[in-house]
């Protein structure tokens, strides 16, 4: 039947249908960047950095090339003290929550301040690269020892060389699982490490700053390790003092060519969160004069000591 009413409805429906079909077709056209799009592929040897030729892969695996000091005549050494300034916070003892017959409460090593001279222990100091003209020391043959007993890591802070063998020991009466959370090197997981057993590993790349070592079974256990490709670094002792590049064979430290340098100073309680947030000081300048020992004091203000780790 072709009444006026039905014909206007037909027209409306027809237009609506046409509109919807066009909408749907429009939707199909929009697949220009979807699955059916043919992506182009450019083959590339390496980055073509503007202003330079495309570089050949460096290939030297990041060997230590040394940095150029600003002057070069004579050598000196660096020693120093990291001194806590202000009221020393008293940390609560670490209280193990399980296997308490073996894991006993112990002092929290996150901030150890010497009461006599306010020296802070376990502060890492280093320069980023071995200076050109400074001695290139080789990776020690003697392995580093990283142990755990009474559910505590020993030592709490450790400097190692890349590729230096580290013996991970469990001298404890319980099983542990030691993990190193790395950024630039291959992560290490000892797996279940039974009591009175050991395993070993070595870092295959340097890190930018110390990294944390933990135990999956005993969440309170924490230690910090720092693998470097050179030995121009130090860890402060119980008196808060350090000698850059010192080792048992070389207590006087390594000699640096005279010039200006930047020292990185890092401590686990100088911040919270990722290790990159825990610097005490970045790029602390110091100068080496020929045949002299430069001694610096680095202040560790109380406001930087973070309690939430």
């Amino acid at each position, binding site marked *: 039947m072709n009444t006026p009413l039905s014909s206007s409805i037909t027209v409306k429906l027809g*237009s609506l249908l046409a509109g919807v079909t066009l909408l749907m077709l429009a939707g199909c056209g929009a697949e220009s960047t979807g699955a059916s799009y043919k992506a182009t592929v450019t083959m590339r040897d390496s980055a073509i950095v503007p202003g330079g030729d495309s570089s050949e892969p460096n290939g030297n695996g990041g060997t230590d090339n040394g940095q150029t000091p600003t002057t070069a005549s004579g050598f000196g050494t660096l020693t120093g003290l990291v001194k806590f300034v202000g009221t020393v916070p008293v940390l609560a003892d670490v209280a193990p929550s399980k296997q308490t017959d073996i894991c006993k409460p112990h002092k929290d090593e996150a901030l150890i301040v010497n009461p006599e001279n306010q020296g802070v222990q376990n502060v890492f100091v280093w320069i980023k690269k071995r200076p050109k003209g400074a001695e290139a020391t080789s990776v020690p043959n003697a392995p580093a020892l990283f142990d755990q007993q009474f559910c505590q890591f020993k030592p709490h802070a450790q400097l190692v060389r890349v590729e230096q063998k580290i013996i991970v020991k469990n001298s404890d009466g319980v099983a542990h699982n030691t993990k190193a959370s790395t950024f630039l090197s291959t992560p290490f997981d000892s797996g279940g490490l039974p009591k009175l057993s050991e395993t070993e590993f070595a870092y295959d790349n340097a890190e930018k*700053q110390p990294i944390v070592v933990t135990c999956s079974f005993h969440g309170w256990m924490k230690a910090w390790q720092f693998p470097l490709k050179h030995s121009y670094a130090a860890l402060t002792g119980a008196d808060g003092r350090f000698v850059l590049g010192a080792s048992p064979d070389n207590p006087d430290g390594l000699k640096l060519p005279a010039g200006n340098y930047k020292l990185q100073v890092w401590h686990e309680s100088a911040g919270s969160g990722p290790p990159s947030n825990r610097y005490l000081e970045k790029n602390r300048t110091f100068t080496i004069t020929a045949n002299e020992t430069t001694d610096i004091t680095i202040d560790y203000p109380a406001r930087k000591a973070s309690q939430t780790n």
Partner: protein
Amino acid sequence: MNARMKLISTASTALLLAGCLANSDTEFVYQTQTDELMKEAKKGFKQPDGGDKVWGLENYLLDLFGTPNDLVAWKRLPVDFGAAGNNLAQGRKLYMEHCMHCHGVSGDGDGPTARYLKPLPRDYRKGLFKFTSTLASDKPNRDDLKRTIKLGIPGTYMPSFMLLTDSELHSVTEYVRWLALRGELELKLDAELSDYDNSDAVRQSRRDDIAAAKKALTAAEKEAEKKPGDPALKAEVAAKQEARKRAENAKETLDKDVRQFLLSQGDSAEDGLREKVDENADFIVGRWARVTDGQNRIVPLAPRTPSSPESINRGRRLFLDNEIKCLECHGDTGQGNGPQTRSYAEGADKPGLFDDWGHPQKPRNLTTGIYRGGRRPIDIYRRIRGGIKGTKMPPNIKLKDQQVWDLVNYVLSIPLNEGPAVTQNKHDHDHDHDHKQADASGE
């Protein structure tokens, strides 16, 4: 009426078509660590004397990997790009069709569907894949990834793609590996550039340092005024002035530093970002290439101990052994409700375990008989020996092969047990916990 309807439908169609014609370029997204870097570190900078732009992290990634519509096949990567990159292009097409809606354009596990999924789809960008046949510290090999794509992951939303042809499976696996390599390089460069963090926390701490240095200087000057001429106090003031200068110049020092680093100049000579890209690419390639030919696979030396009541019993003893610690997470009945699920990890505000992607992770409820990584005995063997990468399931290389097979037999028997497999009274444990029901609806 007629004319108006026509006008409306034409106008709306024109608008829609206009939208289609505009080229909507999909882009890879960057990870949080990249977003929080200083602008120069991310995007490079223009040299003041009008030389070429110096590249930052994003420029390198764009040049070496491209965009989703214009891919770059960087030959150094251990990816089978195929002749003229055909394999990669086909892989990308299949990925966009089948995978992108969950795994995201960048492989970040955050595609449009991801918000409705629990557990979340895999974020490839750490280069961590859970169900592998390789050693704990190694990358997955191609077969591991192909197996996951082909069979899917039971108990999750990852379906089986059994109907892909071999060539399609191969190309999409290569594209996934390529996305993972891109993500890993980005993270490594983030670590190299971590000095140039510009997050809110870092900027606030710089401001705090300046304020504190000013305060310390004022205090030292006041002291010196009381006793003029005292050399020790004069030295103090000088030291505090030095400290204030250092604090105020910290941002400028970093600005100068980052530019030198990006230019490979100054103290960073031969060790700038460009060299770090190469160095870290070599490192990542080495780790992936180490397993491409079937090396470093977990292969039992002892043949499988067939299941038997004795083997299951031995396995049960090992499972409940306090030194091996399966029950710490999986619970004494294997329901995934062990004490670790109620304890607080370092720095966490919620109890329980978290995986490497920062998401809460429930230990597997072994009573369900659903094994995500595969239900063959060798699959369970590999989970125990190699752990599950990216999660808190650790490897175990100290147990003997026969012991692991006993554990495998026990684990496979748990769903068939009629009652709880506990040998001691729950209340005898020496830790405190409240007896909540195991949450069986979790991961």
